[in-house]
């Protein structure tokens, strides 16, 4: 991919993700109560926490699939979802602008969400052609390479219904990578998989991390968090309770809530 204008010059010093005091309500139910965090370029951040802690909601806010109620989220210095007016008020951004930022953020969903009416290859080719208007032949070559990368070169003609959960999720990762994202979001990418299929998806994620991809990963896979994460964030009750290097979080958690959570699941 050609270098994007935002990566020129001083922009490269900016954090990939800069979330500032993010609040989120669903009607009267407050799900996020002031979440602030930064993700450096090339960093792998794993978010853990009990269900209902707001970790998935927070991840979905990062590409504006959920609208935040207050706070700010910058992706490489560019605010997502909103424009700041001269008087400091935030106005929701135009659909085209939001789509443009999203095109640079890959997302992998718990339930895969492959396009059911398209083959694996068509799934991977869809966005580069429709969104970036890249030439068909070039996109097809890239898509085949990506399917090979996730170990599914021979499944190019298969519809999602013919693929196992693990295979579907790997196609979904290839689909996201086809847009040459600068940031990848993983929303419990292995939670809907049969236990014996979890490994093949984690292996692909691990490979991505090794290649230097910036990743925010919401997961229940503590082994993955321990081995792959540069930093682990523990969320509970809509706030970040504790964060740090995986060794510290898993062996010497400081907060009682973190200790209780790790006690329950390890």
């Amino acid at each position, binding site marked *: 991919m050609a270098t994007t204008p935002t990566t020129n010059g001083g922009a490269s010093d900016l954090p990939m993700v800069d979330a500032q005091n993010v609040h989120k309500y669903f009607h009267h139910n407050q799900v996020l109560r002031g979440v602030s965090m930064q993700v450096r370029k090339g960093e792998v951040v794993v978010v853990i926490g009990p269900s209902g802690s707001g970790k998935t909601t927070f991840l979905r806010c990062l*590409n*504006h*699939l959920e*609208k935040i109620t207050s706070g700010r989220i910058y992706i490489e210095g560019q605010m997502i*979802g909103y424009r700041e007016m001269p008087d400091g008020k935030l106005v*929701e951004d135009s*659909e*085209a602008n*939001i*789509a*443009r930022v*999203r*095109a*640079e*953020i*890959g*997302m992998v*969903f718990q*339930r*895969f*969400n*492959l*396009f*059911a*009416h398209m083959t694996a290859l068509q799934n991977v080719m*869809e*966005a580069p052609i*429709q*969104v*970036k208007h890249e030439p068909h032949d070039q996109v097809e070559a890239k898509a085949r390479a990506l399917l090979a990368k996730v170990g599914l070169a021979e499944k190019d003609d298969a*519809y*999602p*219904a*013919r693929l196992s959960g693990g295979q*579907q999720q790997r196609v*979904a990762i290839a*689909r*996201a990578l086809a*847009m040459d994202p600068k940031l990848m979001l993983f929303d419990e990418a292995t939670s809907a998989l049969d236990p014996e299929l979890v490994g093949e998806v984690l292996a692909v994620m691990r490979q991505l991390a090794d290649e230097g991809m910036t990743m925010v990963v919401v997961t229940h896979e503590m082994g993955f968090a321990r081995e792959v994460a540069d930093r682990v964030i523990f969320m509970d009750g809509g706030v970040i309770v504790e964060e740090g290097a995986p060794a510290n979080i898993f062996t010497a958690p400081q907060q009682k809530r973190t200790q209780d959570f790790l006690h329950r699941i390890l």
Partner: protein
Amino acid sequence: MNQILAFYHHFDWGIVLPSLFKPLIIQGLIFTVLISVISQFAGTVIGLVLYFLRRSRFAPMRFFADAYIWFYRGTPLLVQILFLYLALPYLGIAVPLRNFDFFGAIGFTPELFFLDSFLAGVVALSLNEGAYMSEIVRAGIDSMDIGQMEAARSLGMTYAQGMRRIVLPQAMRVIVPPLGNEFNNMLKTTALISDISFYELLGAAKQLGNPSFRGLELLVSASIWYLVLTTVWGFIQSVIERRLGASSLDPALRNTRWWERLMGIGRGVETAPAIPGTVAGVPPVIQGDRR
């Protein structure tokens, strides 16, 4: 029954069969198909538009769509047809057109085809069909997993792109079977237009049969044609459904035979196809958030 038949002296099959191919009947047949296709097409477009109005962020648009559907589903179609027939001339729509011999120009018997009847009929059927199609479109689109649209958006597609490329093509599989039923209905509902002096199939049959006191025979002739139309359509519909279901794993959707379709006993034709992630019976509503 005997008394009725006695009035006609005898029921004469010798009139029924030759009447099938009388020019006026054939012309009526062509018009029945023409009106059905136009009205179903326009009604489907109106139904789509109504769906998006109902999902609009702007309250007046939602209100308009709801009021439209409430009105068209709440009044008799025959009343709507008669109303438009009487109202169109006031709008000045049909009167200038009537002087243009459209039907004569394409080889029909002009004095028996009134353009204002034709217009009133097509417009009334289309508007009415739109109200019903919007419900079918809604059922189809809302039965899609919301995750499909979210995945499209996460890749940088807009709402319109996601609809056009991802959601609508899949919703078609759910929409087509009831759409086919609507068209089957439409083929027969056009008969109402005979009440505003238009000589579609039934109008032509009445025109030929009533003056000669052979109404019963001509009604049977018309019925034979209606049966031919719906049978042929049932065949076409099952072919379309099988094509659409080609990538589906649900055998019920793929293997609906044309005669099952016709008899309404096809397995699974009214249920949602097996699209992974779709919760059967609980259509997830596409939320108001259109970003």
